[in-house]
């Protein structure tokens, strides 16, 4: 769905703007960690924190060259989690994690979750202030939107303060009619406020950035792509006042 690309580059855009940002790999497949740190499979991470109350957050934080940008990898305890399980199993631990993030002084915590709304992903959404939904601009993906909306409505019962920032269209191919039609159809279906204006294009730059373990904006020719995420950051900031701890979650 392009959620990992979105998470990494959006987090980087916030960090570049001076927002103390923590990017957390809450996907058991560990894509953020794999993308940005070569040793990520050896690091303790988010799932270790959930499994072991004795692990402090400080042990999990991986700094980057950008002072305002830090990471938490998925961790070693994530293997058993691939099945998802019932939402609610880790609610208390997820909330403990977010409290620790607040106490550590981060302004923004972005959690890149596994797809779906169950298991730990459900617990993360039930603990967050807001949710951003990456949606690949292709017909099959759009057809799953009603299920996603239903699931989010259920989770808002558990977490009434959850704000839905909107759907972000990702992997948009301007030169492919089906992709543009799908993007158009989604905008027709949903209220205007629920679809971000900024779209993430499918671009070889992202593959190159991922291969080098970097956010796309760091590449020599990445300014254009960085501008996309800067625009998205501005759009999100306009929706949501980012002061103090504001966890975001990508599903």
């Amino acid at each position, binding site marked *: 769905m392009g959620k990992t690309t979105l998470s990494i580059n959006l987090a980087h855009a916030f960090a570049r703007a001076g927002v103390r940002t923590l990017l957390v790999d809450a996907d058991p497949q560990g894509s953020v960690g794999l993308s940005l740190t070569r040793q990520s499979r050896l690091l303790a991470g988010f799932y270790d924190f959930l499994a072991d109350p004795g692990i402090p957050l400080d042990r999990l934080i991986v700094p980057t060259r950008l002072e305002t940008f830090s990471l938490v990898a998925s961790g070693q305890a994530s293997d058993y989690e691939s099945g998802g399980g019932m939402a609610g199993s880790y609610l208390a631990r997820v909330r403990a994690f977010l409290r620790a993030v607040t106490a550590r002084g981060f302004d923004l915590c972005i959690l890149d979750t596994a797809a779906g709304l169950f298991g730990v992903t459900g617990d993360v959404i039930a603990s967050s202030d807001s949710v951003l939904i990456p949606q690949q601009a292709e017909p099959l993906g759009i057809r799953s939107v009603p299920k996603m909306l239903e699931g989010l409505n259920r989770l808002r019962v558990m977490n009434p303060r959850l704000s839905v920032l909107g759907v972000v269209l990702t992997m948009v191919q301007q030169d492919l009619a089906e992709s543009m*039609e799908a993007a158009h159809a989604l905008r027709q279906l949903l209220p205007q406020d629920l679809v971000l204006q900024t779209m993430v294009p499918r671009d070889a730059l992202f593959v190159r950035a991922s291969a080098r373990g970097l956010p796309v904006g760091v590449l020599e020719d990445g300014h254009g792509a960085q501008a996309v995420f800067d625009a998205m950051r501005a759009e999100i900031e306009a929706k949501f006042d980012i002061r103090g701890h504001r966890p975001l979650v990508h599903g």
Partner: protein
Amino acid sequence: MDPVHPWLDPIEVRRLAERLLLPVHEPAVQVTDAGFGEQFVGYSPVQPLGSLTAMQEAAPQPLVAVAIQPTPPPTPVVVQAPPPPPVPAPVEPPPVPQAVAIAQPEPEPVPVGIVAPAPRPEARGPFLDRVGRFRDWLHHHFDASGIFLLDREGAVIFDESGHGKLHFLARSLAVAARRPGGAPANVHVKVGAAATLEVIPVDTPYGCIVLGAVVPSPMEPAAVASVMDALRSVASPQG
């Protein structure tokens, strides 16, 4: 051919999406009296229920909550248990068990598929007497212990469990399981190797009352329905 619309109901999608933009009514649930520490992650299923404090300190275990529909099955109940003997109103308050007793020996558990008759409606008396008989009925027919009732504000109406944490858990589960506009649904969560906290919210003339009871295994839908009926009757001003 339109690649999207034939697979979707645009009106329904729009309705769901617009609901996401509306504020959600936040129920007033008091969480400050829960007594959970920041490290609380659920009850250990291997600990005996005799030591809830010890459970909190035990290694974290996943908490499994399952919501089932409260509607009874469409077929009639196969077997009816004999009516319980009339139970006098308790003269003194029941002893608060040190354990949420799974080790209580006497009560006969109701087999799967059997629905016990509710307490006799003719013997009404004051509210607390009715609650006492209802409790005895739950003890006898469902091997229930640690029974408590919470009112719509989450305040305790009746409690033999003595554990605020169970109240908090029940309150949270009842709120989480409630769908806007929908009927209340029961939820259960495993709190020990042979103990399940059954949470049954019931709409009554006095608002939603949440029943919490520790039972050996999750209750069948038919049993839940009979408990709901019984509690509704107990909480009604007139029989």
